[in-house]
């Protein structure tokens, strides 16, 4: 047996990691949202100003960032529904870990077709 103390770090498995994931994705989405409202507000400046900025988003690097953003949003959405089930469904707390695997499964089910469509458009459909 190890002589070093095990430490006091809480290792909460599914419950803790879904909570960490929810916080990290939530903060990332929030900062994106601030920028997204500002860039969309350029339609009020002029068509040229909006188009110039949006054109800088239409490249493979930004397409990958968009894929990451959508991945974060889809996880946050499905895990949010899991949180609602844990809070309001009688058996939610009992099945919270299984619900997380449901979230991961649904996330894969949505992300695979999304990535195929979005990355195909981004990497081949350019003007």
């Amino acid at each position, binding site marked *: 047996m190890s002589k070093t103390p095990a430490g006091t770090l809480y290792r909460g498995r599914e419950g803790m990691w879904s909570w960490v994931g929810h*916080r990290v994705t*939530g*903060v990332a*989405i*929030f900062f994106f*949202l*601030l920028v997204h*409202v*500002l860039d*969309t*507000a350029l*339609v*009020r400046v*002029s*068509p*040229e100003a*909006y*188009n110039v900025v*949006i054109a800088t*988003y*239409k490249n493979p690097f930004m*397409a990958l960032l*968009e894929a990451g953003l*959508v991945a974060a*949003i889809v996880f946050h*959405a499905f895990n*949010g*529904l899991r*949180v*609602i089930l844990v*809070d*309001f469904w009688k058996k939610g707390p009992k099945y919270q870990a299984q619900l997380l695997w449901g979230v991961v499964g649904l996330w894969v089910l949505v992300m695979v077709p*999304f990535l195929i*469509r*979005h990355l195909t*458009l*981004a990497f081949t*459909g*350019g*003007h």
Partner: protein
Amino acid sequence: MAVSSEIQAPRSGRVAPKYTRHGSSRGNFEMLAWLFMRVSGLVLVVLIFGHLFVNLMVGEGVHAIDFGFVAGKWADPFWQIWDLAMLWLAMLHGTNGVRTIINDYADKDGTRFWLKTVLYAATAVIIVLGTLVIFTFNPCPPNAAAELLPSFCPAP
């Protein structure tokens, strides 16, 4: 003597003052904030999934997005209301989430106060700006090149 097996109801509804962390002035704000996160979250799943599908998956996807695309959407009150609801709900949902995180991790009273002041100021600016843009937007601005405008704009 028979021992009663009756279980007393918990003495809910009153907490001794020494166990409360703040005065009663806060009311049930935190409970309402908790409930708002669940209700707005449910609505946002529909609004944002619809937004992403229409803007990224349909037609040419991301390539179609330009001034004419946005102008075409906001010519329809349906998308104006959709985007307005998304703006307000997402900003309030996100602001309350970041408020929770600041309360969790900022130990000093002063740090918490200033971080939340900056947060609320940013939120107010973004909500007011976004709302004004949705409602004062002109899809056919004068002096703009015609090829950048949606097809329904009158010829100059």
